[in-house]
């Protein structure tokens, strides 16, 4: 298969042009540092949402502990860059790998559980990570981790976002990705067709955790300061809302969801009291009236293959789809 055909070339050129356009807007000062903060937050949210979408939307494993992986990544990167003086590149890669390792370790036992039980177990895992972080003095405990060097900028954030989106998009359309989708559609049938359930669930979990770790690293090295409460249950819910809002099983949906909800959340900062009420109502409304999310297809069942078909058409960067 040719790696660089015409469509791929266009995608790459489009990505580079977008990067250069935003970068030059920063350079000539149209976008100020407040805008930069919001744009980087959007990038972080996209990475988190795409990762969780792989776990929940494509593989069908309901995780309520995604923020825990972000926390692991953020602390790993903070320790590496602030305490051990490593360059950001090392911090970002290792925080992804450590988070992925945590994903594998927690995934192997808990992914035997189904649906609700898995949700509660991952929630419990998230709480355990938070409590451990709160009580470890080396990383600041409840006071938080201070003086993390600020390395994250538009280049890093955008690069990692593109990496996450392209990686997961290609993964979904690969042989392994189809196995994950088969698990979501029907576990027993997938197993009967020879799909190794544990392997693919843990694989999806590890990839999602890897990118959550990278997102955590970007976060830590942008805001100088992290504390365990930042990555609590509410953060996991925030990510879940983005994924559900955009559509479970739609990568474009996650991207749109991350952008829309990050902007909404910024606008609602002046009415912080109402923010969570509105969030809850949005979540409730989506589940009631459009359980497939923003980008989902119109049928009531959210988990249809059509969503993916549409995506590939719209994105056009992946070949080999015809072989399905």
């Amino acid at each position: 298969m040719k790696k660089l055909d015409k469509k791929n070339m266009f995608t790459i050129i489009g990505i580079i042009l977008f990067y250069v356009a935003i970068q030059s807007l920063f350079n000539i000062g149209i976008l100020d540092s407040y805008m930069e903060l919001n744009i980087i937050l959007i990038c972080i949210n996209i990475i988190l949402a795409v990762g969780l979408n792989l776990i929940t939307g494509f593989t069908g494993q309901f995780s309520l502990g995604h923020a825990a992986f972000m926390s692991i990544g953020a602390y790993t990167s903070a320790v590496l860059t602030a305490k051990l003086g490593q360059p950001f590149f090392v911090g970002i890669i290792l925080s992804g790998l450590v988070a992925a390792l945590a994903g594998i370790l927690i995934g192997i036992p808990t992914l035997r559980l189904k649906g609700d039980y898995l949700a509660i177990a991952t929630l419990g895992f998230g709480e355990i990570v938070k409590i451990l972080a709160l009580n470890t003095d080396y990383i600041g405990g409840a006071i938080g981790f201070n003086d993390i060097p600020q390395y994250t900028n538009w280049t890093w954030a955008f690069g990692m976002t593109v990496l996450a989106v392209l990686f997961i998009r290609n993964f979904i359309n690969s042989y392994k990705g189809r196995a994950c989708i088969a698990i979501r559609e029907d576990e027993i049938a997938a197993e009967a067709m020879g799909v190794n359930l544990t392997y693919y669930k843990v694989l999806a979990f590890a990839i999602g955790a890897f990118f959550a770790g990278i997102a955590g690293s970007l976060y830590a090295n942008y805001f100088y300061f992290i504390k365990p409460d930042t990555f609590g249950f509410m953060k996991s819910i925030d990510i879940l809302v983005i994924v559900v809002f955009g559509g479970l099983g739609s990568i474009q949906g996650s991207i749109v969801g991350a952008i829309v909800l990050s902007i909404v959340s910024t606008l609602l900062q002046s009415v912080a009291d109402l923010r969570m009420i509105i969030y809850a109502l949005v979540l409730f409304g989506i589940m009631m009236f459009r359980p497939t999310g923003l980008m989902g297809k119109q049928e009531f069942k959210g988990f249809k293959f059509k969503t993916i078909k549409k995506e590939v058409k719209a994105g056009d960067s992946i070949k080999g789809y015809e072989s399905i």
Partner: protein
Amino acid sequence: MEQVFQQLINGISLGGIYALMALGYTMVYGIINLINFAHGDIYMVGAYVGFALTTFFNIGFLPALLISMAVTSLLGIIIEKIAYKPLRKSPRITALITAISISLLLQYTMMYFVGPQTRTFPEVLESKSLRFLNGNVILDIKNVYILAITLILMVALQFIVKKTKMGKAMRASSFDLEAAELMGVNVNKVISFTFAMGSALAGAAGVLVGIYYNTINPLMGSLPGLKAFVAAVLGGIGAIPGAVLGGFSLGLIETIVSANGGSVFKDAVAFLILILVLLIKPNGLLGKTVKEKV
């Protein structure tokens, strides 16, 4: 020795509260297979109703408890009708996310109206305490009240489930919802009734926690709610005696852990238990094994 008795008293009081909440989880899960995430927040509403009644209306403890139970059971029915009933046929994940959204809605709506600050629950019971073993073990009158009310409510629940017609319908529905419907059981009524009872128990637990710890806040429900769910899983979800056993066990374990220097880790212990139970004995201590069908 005194230490052990004191821990036992504290653990049983805490366990009684968990058990009351776990009953609601287990009954709802037994019938419609839904983790009612909003359960912990119904408990919070119960505590606030009790607080309002005793503080602003100067109502005595027992009437306040009963009114709170009535209000929360009504709230439970409303939530079921508005949020869960339309989604009864939809995928599990949809129902679960809806439950989370209802939970958030209750928490932050309450916070919007009463403010995020912690409030002090009035001393509605005369402070009296019994001392044993040279005064080293203190049995507060609150502990007695909590245990007595918990037991009375559990016996009442057991009576309703085992001896009344509605209880029979509930048991039939939890055994097989569709078959029960075919046999003429009004399933909608049964589900509403289950929510009403579970929520009333949660409301009672909320008031009891108010008098026990004296402080309430709008987010007080989320962590105890999750722990009560852990208790229900520990005892075997769907089994009513299991919820009681799980609640008391969890209360005791937590008290023992915090007494032995692990107070910062006491929240983690509950979740560790959950993960262990799910891995070793997913049906819980008293749950029955269910075969999976394609």
